[in-house]
């Protein structure tokens, strides 16, 4: 990447809750001023824990980070002053109106009312809540709450904004709206952002750089383009009849094939330089050797493949549904209690 000034420097940051296993395990990265940096990873990868340490809500077990030139261990309060946080869960006070919530947060930053009142209204307008601003938050929909969280995170004009799953559990329209706010923040305010997400297309379209995190460790990092290039070649997914046995060796002998991975007893991931040419050859080789090809598909590398490559899991297939269900449950818990 080009030489930019680092607004954030994270050094071997680790957190263990139980003293045995690590939720975050020696994470190191930098974020340049004005960058949108994405943390991408499955459930429990340690994304939220990383953010909580960087925003001084959790004490690191070891390692440290400097945020906007301040050490998160030594200058915790100064760090809090210059960053904004939009947490994963809803944290606004339901008994108060949106405007009251955001004004209270402004008070806690010590921003005088003559500055905070117009700014609160401006932010509510930014997230399309100016009409609902005087209603109690308990009457808001999930999407409205998330947008209110976003507005709260911006009240202190942060130099660095943390967005933890900003679009989790939102419908397509609201998600698109949040994306456009994020682009606006970057363009109009030159804000630096660290966001976590489950959605690959989100990371792909919003982030300048992405770190893929799994089991508390960063397994890959780079711009979306760099990451896609690192996977190397097109991917042919082949599904065979289960009873046919291992076809790995036969696949490897095909001229154009670079790499073969058996992902299940009957499924194979085959990498080839030019997929369109390799696919017919793969078919032929399998047929000739008596295998029954049930399915075959060709994919050009996208972040999905990158993700699959580095974490061994497909985010789109299994996780996303589960995550949304979780978000839903979380909301329901709040609503009930």
């Amino acid at each position, binding site marked *: 990447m080009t030489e930019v*000034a680092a607004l954030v420097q994270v050094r071997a940051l680790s957190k263990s809750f139980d003293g045995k296993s690590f939720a975050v395990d020696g994470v190191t990265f930098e974020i340049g001023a004005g960058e949108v940096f994405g943390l991408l990873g499955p459930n429990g990868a340690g994304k939220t824990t990383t953010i909580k340490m960087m925003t001084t809500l959790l004490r690191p077990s070891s390692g440290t980070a400097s945020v906007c030139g301040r050490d998160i261990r030594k200058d915790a309060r100064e760090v809090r002053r210059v960053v904004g946080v939009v947490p994963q869960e809803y*944290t606004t006070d339901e008994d108060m109106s949106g405007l009251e919530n955001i004004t209270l947060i402004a008070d806690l930053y*010590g921003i005088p009312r003559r500055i905070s009142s117009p700014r609160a209204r401006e932010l509510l307008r930014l997230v399309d809540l100016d009409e609902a601003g005087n209603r109690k938050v308990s009457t808001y929909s999930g999407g409205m709450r998330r947008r209110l969280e976003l507005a709260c995170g911006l009240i202190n004009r942060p130099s660095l904004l943390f967005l933890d799953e900003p679009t989790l559990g939102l419908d397509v329209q609201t998600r698109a709206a949040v994306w456009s706010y994020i682009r606006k923040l970057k363009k109009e305010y030159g804000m630096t952002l660290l966001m976590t997400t489950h959605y690959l297309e989100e990371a792909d379209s919003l982030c300048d750089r992405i770190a893929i995190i799994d089991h508390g460790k960063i397994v890959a990092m780079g711009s979306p383009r760099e990451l896609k290039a690192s996977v190397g070649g097109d991917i042919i997914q082949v599904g065979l009849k289960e009873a046919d046995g291992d076809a790995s060796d036969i696949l490897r002998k095909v001229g154009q094939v670079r790499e073969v991975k058996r992902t299940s007893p009957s499924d194979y991931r085959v990498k080839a330089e030019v997929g369109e040419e390799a696919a017919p050859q793969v078919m032929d080789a399998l047929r000739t050797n008596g295998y029954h090809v049930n399915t075959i598909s060709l994919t050009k590398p996208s972040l999905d493949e990158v993700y699959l490559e580095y974490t061994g899991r497909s985010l789109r297939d299994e996780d996303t549904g589960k995550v949304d269900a979780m978000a839903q449950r979380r909301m329901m818990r709040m609503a009930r209690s």
Partner: protein
Amino acid sequence: MVAVRAEPAAEEHASTSPVHGLWALTNRELKKWYKVPMLLFFSLIQPVIWLTLYGTGMNFGTLFAKGISIPGVPPSEVASLSSQFMLNVFGVSNYFSFLAVGMLSFIVLFTAMFSGMSVVWDRRFGFLDKVLSTPVSRGAIIMAKVFSSVVRSLAQAAIVLVIAVLMDMDTSHFSVVGIAGTFAALFLMTLGLSSIFVMLALRSSDWQTQMAIMNLLNLPLLFASNALFPAKFMPAALQYVVRLNPISYGTDIGRQLLLGAPGLNTLAFDFSFLAGFAVVFSAIGVVLSWRYLTR
């Protein structure tokens, strides 16, 4: 990479004083309270029931006067014996008044106990995380809980006092100084008690544990004090507990100042004890909040 140091806009530092955040948070708590008058109403029911059932229903003076008939002794004699008994035992001629002052301590204790609950709720609903991610001082977060609980307790105590006066309380010894002094004592008492209950909730995100703690402590604290019965007739061991219990001191001050009753201790001693109690526990609360509010 070269590190960049970002500065917040200078204008924003203008009024950043510790009091700013403390006031904002206290105000939030109080708003929640006065916006729901039902809550206030319900919390007053219990002391009123106690006053009615216990203070008038089981009035010891009446028991003595009506319950004893000795042949040959005229009823007027019994009545004077009865009032002598009341003065010796309770320091006042009227048990209802004795109990009414105890009820001031009761309502203060019960209100203070709930201060811990609101910490637990804020943690559960995530609001605490929101507050913790702002630069407001950790001590201010705790003191806001304590102060709002103090205001609530004193307001409830004032209402209980008015109700007691309307019912049957003896007001012949009332004075402005006496009432002010009593509320000063209640202030110190609730400051210390609220700090204790907030402290117990610092790390907790489980309201059931909090409820269990409250239930474990409320009646013992009440009965092992002079709020309902005079301490001098209690067993020696219990009297030690009574003397450690801050509720006894608040009540003792109230009885001396509002009813002109003889006290367990001098007013100066009572006030010193309560002041020490309040200062020590609120200070511990603030210190612990620095360490324990974040994990």
